[in-house]
Structures are given as structure tokens and as C-alpha cells.
């Protein structure tokens, strides 16, 4: 167990960092539950990967990619309320995923498992996490301005639809990666809780984004470490660690 810990902690640290950073925007944009719903969509993709013996991460990402095109199209092409449609579509995906995922792998898919982490997994997680942070960093301010007012962002020449789409794609990437760490059921927590905690502690954007990323990293590392010590599943342990940080942040809440 001890020898295996370094690769899992590395994966957790980088994915936690990226999830916290992206989560800061998702919370501002009131997309918290989108992250949660998206992670459910990943399940059928993951299951297909297991059944047909290709990398489940690819399956998850492909399923997320398709569903993001779907949400984006509904949002832009119709006047329908996305909430209900998304709710139906996503719970349906979860149901299908639950049925087709082979029983032995189901628990792993639902709650994550990074006890078996190869060097390739580490490399993929580190590179993609850094890529996600880099891309989002470049559009962070524009996304925030677009959140305050879409028209205001357009008035300074921002192509708001384009950056929204890029952001959703990066969210899909991080959700697909995060599933390995905390599983499809708990991925929402990895993006929401660090940002919610950081919001309590921040008065400006750079603090907020920075703390959120840092809390994502710390909760992953602490969670994975303690899970291995007490031989507990890492996914729930990561969520417990981030929730603990959230409750501590309430004490220091800045108005």
C-alpha cells in the first residue's frame, strides 16, 4: 500500500488543483450542479470502456463531450429551460450506466479508485490538469465578466458563446479525470466544495481562484493519505476532507 501511495497522491493533487480552480468559476456561474450532473453522464461511457476493453477515461470523456454539445445546443438554439431537460437526460444516463456497468467494477466507477495508478495514469493526469488550468487561466477574467453581464462582456469584444463552449469542454476533461479519484457520484463535491470554502475566505478574484485551487489540492492529498492509513475508500475520504475545510472556512468567513 505504502509504495503505491505516491502515484495516487500525485494524481489526486493535480486533479484536485484543477478541479478547485475550475470549480471557482462553476460556482460563480451557478453551474455547481452541472458538474454533478455531468459526472453522471460519464458512467455509461466508463462502462463501455470496461466492457469493450478500452481506456475508461476515454469512454467517460467521449460521453461527456457528446452531452456538452447537447447542453450547449439546447442553450443556444432553443428557448427551452435547460434545467428540466438536463435533469432528465442526466438521470437517464446514470440509470443506463448502472445497468450496463459490470457488477465488480460498479463500486469503483461510482466512488473512484486510485489505489491502482500506473505511471501513464500519472502522466495523463498531470499533463491534462496543467493544460486545463492554463486554458482556463487565459479566459478566466472574460468568463467572470460574462457572468456579471453577458452584454458587458460583448461590449468589450468578448465572444461569450465561444469562451463558454471552451470552458464547458475543459470542465468535461476535468470531470473525466476526477472520476478516477472520487468516482461519478462524488465528482460534484470536488468542484463545488473547495470553491464554496474559498468564497468564504476571499474578497477578490485572485485570492478566490487561488484558495479554491489550493483547497482542492489539499483535500485530495489529505483524503487519499488518510484513506490509505485507515484503509478506507479514497473518494469519500477526499470529500470528507474538503467538507472539513469548508466548515473551518465558515469560522473565518469574511463579509
Amino acid at each position, binding site marked *: 500500500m505504502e509504495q503505491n501511495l505516491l502515484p495516487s497522491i500525485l494524481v489526486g493533487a493535480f486533479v484536485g488543483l484543477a478541479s478547485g480552480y475550475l470549480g471557482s468559476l462553476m460556482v460563480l456561474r451557478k453551474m455547481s450542479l452541472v458538474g454533478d450532473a455531468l459526472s453522471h453522464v460519464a458512467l455509461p461511457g466508463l462502462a463501455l470502456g470496461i466492457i469493450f476493453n478500452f481506456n475508461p477515461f476515454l469512454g467517460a470523456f467521449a460521453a461527456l463531450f457528446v452531452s456538452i454539445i447537447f447542453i450547449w445546443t439546447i442553450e443556444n438554439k432553443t428557448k427551452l429551460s435547460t434545467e428540466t431537460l438536463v435533469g432528465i437526460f442526466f438521470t437517464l444516463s446514470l440509470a443506463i450506466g448502472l445497468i450496463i456497468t459490470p457488477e465488480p467494477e460498479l463500486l469503483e466507477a461510482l466512488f473512484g479508485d486510485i489505489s491502482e495508478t500506473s505511471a501513464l495514469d500519472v502522466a495523463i493526469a498531470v499533463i491534462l490538469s496543467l493544460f486545463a488550468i492554463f486554458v482556463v487561466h487565459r479566459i478566466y477574467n472574460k468568463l*467572470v465578466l460574462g457572468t456579471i453581464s453577458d452584454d*458587458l462582456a*460583448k461590449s468589450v469584444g468578448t465572444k461569450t458563446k465561444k469562451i463558454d463552449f471552451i470552458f464547458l469542454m475543459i470542465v468535461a476533461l476535468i470531470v473525466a479525470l476526477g472520476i478516477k479519484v472520487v468516482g461519478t457520484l462524488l465528482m460534484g463535491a470536488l468542484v463545488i466544495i473547495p470553491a464554496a470554502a474559498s468564497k468564504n475566505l476571499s474578497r*477578490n478574484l485572485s485570492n478566490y481562484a487561488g484558495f479554491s485551487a489550493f483547497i482542492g489540492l489539499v483535500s485530495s492529498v489529505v483524503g487519499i493519505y488518510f484513506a490509505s492509513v485507515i484503509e478506507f475508500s479514497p473518494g469519500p475520504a477526499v470529500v470528507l476532507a474538503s467538507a472539513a475545510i469548508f466548515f473551518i472556512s465558515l469560522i473565518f468567513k469574511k463579509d
Partner: protein
Amino acid sequence: MDDDKILKVKDLSVSFGDFNVFHDISFEVKRGEAVAIVGPNGSGKSVLFRAILNFIPYSGKVEWTKNIKIGYVPQKLFIDANFPISVNDFFSFKTKSKQAIIEALNSVGITGNEEHLQHHILSKKLGALSGGQFQRIMIAWAIINKPDILLFDEPTSGIDVGGEETIYNLLHKLQTQNKLSLVLISHDLNIVYHYADKVMCLNKEMICFGEPHVVLDPTSLSKLYGGEAKFYSHEH
């Protein structure tokens, strides 16, 4: 285009699907001129702004003078008090120059040295500002790159009556000092009489356009508001 005309709009129409918002609007704005747009709720005033700013599809012609710089203040933004953004962050979306920020703050009547402004304004959360302060910050934000024209959707929504007049005085001062053109959407006809060089009455179509004292006659007003006086005192 003539040198003194900075915006020419011809036969502008906007529809959302089958719903026609307004049709065949034509008008011009000259340099340094203040134009007010009046009309009841749902008459298409904000949509007109969004069309001439090219945010939404339209038919007709919108012609801006070359290399024009446009400042825009949208209708009542609501910023959650917990939104973790400082006034400084908000300005940083537009400029990295501290000097430019301080100049813009000074010209909207928020004065003091850099340290004072940093402490009392720039480090504050955007959502923690009072309604009047927030509107001033929005104007400062819009004029920071010294625009030729400022489009302002309902300058006084969310401001008490005392603050209302000062916002107009401020806009008027900016207009005369910087030769800034203003296009304002307003509900308040008193303000229009007082500050606007021209007024456009809009209700699905252009009912009048010209100097307020000339064109705002009882006929066009009753056509505009359907003869109901209650619109005159409309407040948000």
C-alpha cells in the same frame, strides 16, 4: 459619413422568431449630442441598444463612424454581495493602468489620492457598494478608455431621487467636457426635457424623433403611452 455624425441608423428592425420587437427605426447621433430614448416597458428600448451594438441579429443598417470607441452601461446589474470580486478586479478587466483607473474615478466624482481610493473603493467588493456608488463605478468603467459615445440603459434605476439628479449632472458634465455623445434610455420625461438635445419616442415603431420641446406633444405622448398617465411615474 459627415464628420459630425457618429452614428447613422436606417430602417432598423428586430424580430425574435415571429415576434416583431420594433421596425423601421431611423435616426442619427452627432458628436457631443445627448439623445434620450423614451417609451413604455416592452417597447424595445433595450433591444434597440443591443441591436446597434451588434449583440443580436437585425435587419437594416447601423453605421458607426470609423474607429469609434463606444462605452456601454447595461440595465441594472445585480451583483451578489458574496461575489468575490473587488472593484479593482472589475477595472482590471478593462485596463492594467492604475493611473487610468484613478482618472476615471475622479471624473465620476470619486476623488482622493491613490491610497485613499485603494482603501475605500478599489479594495471593496463590487456587491458591497451602494446603488449610487455602483452606478458611478459603472460609468467610470465605461469611460475608462475615453469613448466617443456612451450608451446608457436606465442610468438611474436603483438610485434614490437625490442621487438621481447627480448622476444626470455628472453625465451632462462629461458630455460637455469631453465632447462625449450620450444615448440614454430613460423613463423620466422631466430628465428628458432637462438634459436631452434630442428625444426618440419608441413603441414598436419610432413615434417621434427631434428636440424634446418640439416633438413631445400630447399627440405623440398619448400614442406612445396609450394615453395612460401611470407610465410617467414608472419606477423600478
